[in-house]
């Protein structure tokens, strides 16, 4: 299992505080693991260049 790293752990602590979530250490480790997976997903997406005219897909129709 990849280590989550100090920057992710620091982000996690700050984000949990910002969102008003209190977790014990075992839960924090699991959330960190899940965030690490999501970070890898984000990194893969970032490898694909996107032109500036590519707007976010619609989530809402007026």
């Amino acid at each position, binding site marked *: 299992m990849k280590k989550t790293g100090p920057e992710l752990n620091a982000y996690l602590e700050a984000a949990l505080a910002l969102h008003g979530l209190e977790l014990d250490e075992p839960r924090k480790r699991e959330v960190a693991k899940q965030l690490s*997976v999501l970070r890898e997903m984000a990194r893969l997406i970032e490898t694909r260049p996107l032109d500036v005219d590519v707007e976010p897909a619609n989530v809402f129709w007026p």
Partner: protein
Amino acid sequence: MNNTYPFSAQDCTAAFKRGEASAREIAQASLERIARLNPDLNAYTAITRQRALEEADALDHERLQKNPTPALAAVPYAVKNLFDVAGLTTLAGARLHAGNPPASADATLVDRLRSAGGLLTGTLNMDAYAYGFTTENTHYGATRNPRDPTCSAGGSSGGTGAAVAAGLVPIGLASDTNGSIRVPASLCGVFGLKPTFGRLSRRGTHPFVASLDHLGPLATSSTDLALAYDALQGWDPRDPACVHRLPAPCLPSLGVGLAGLRIARLTGYFDQYAGAEARWAAETAARALGATEEVELEGVAEARAAAYLITATESGALYLDALRQRSEAFEPLSRERLTAGALVPAAWYQRAQRLREWYRRRAAELLDRYDLLIAPATPVTAPLLGQETIRVRGRELPTRPNLGLLTQPISFIGLPVAVAPLWPEGSMPMGVQLIAAPWREDLCLRAAWALEQTGLATSLPPEERT
């Protein structure tokens, strides 16, 4: 009416129409079979016996009055327990919701099946929050695969897949965000349809991912699938995500054939993550349907990653208040995934939604050249319950997030997909995805029907075929 499995929706309606069986007799046959088999399968979380019999009696009365027979007259059905059913609490697979008041009205799609003469037999088990591909629910138990009870029925609509595969009901309703209709259809060996995003009303269903949630039917035949789908169609002004399009019945054109259609098998990513049975199924279906080409779609791996990220973010945000206030009520398999999703940086999410638009354009270009694309529905056949990893082309992958590897990139851009079940030699079933351009569910269903006519696609396992 012959009370032995299997009985199709068409069988039910025909028997009722000809007067060979009353709707009550058909309802009772279904309910008896549910009572007998469900304890071992754990497909149902609630059985609506009284309602099914009342609906049946009302139909029988209508027939006595010589009123027209509706399209799904006397067809027993069941729905995933994220659909509102009047008088029942909508669980969405989660104990978190068990204390909520009961729904005051049926979901739109339940109402449509009722209006079409369907008989609601109950609500079906699912992965909690719809966040899973195996229906191993900590709170309500795992649903077993009727083809092999040591195996998963898939998810998150495992209860629906199992109920239809076991012949408890010929039609079931389910949802599909990243594969939750198609994965159970594949693993349980039944037909499924995930329509175009926005085609069917989501009103009265518990949400999971607003950007990606679809609803649709599973059935034991392509004809029954089309019958159900046609009854479900129609714009719903009460659902802001439902696109205003006229219904486009598919049943009349089911047997038109595939002459002149440009059909290709998707390779690249869809081969990379396909085990031996999955590869066999896609190649066999492609040959049977006259697919002349193999083609790659650009950016599939990134698309799957973006779907994964959007799912995590939107579902995490949806449950954030509950995570703060009632974390102990959450299912352990999902709680930390939801928490992580709630913390995703906005820039990741925005990038994923932009990637989605880019990828939609690539798929549209491909679908200008081809009318139908074929891919396996799952990387492997049904894993064992509790199996932690699956082996795909020599790699060990965690089971739960990866059964949807081949479905996620397609639902991500809302394309219509039918799943037809094939049976690799000596193996559990394996579904193939039949994918078309937006709003062309008719092509998906025509292809499913054509495959069924060859004998390759069937919901009957080899030992039950005559």
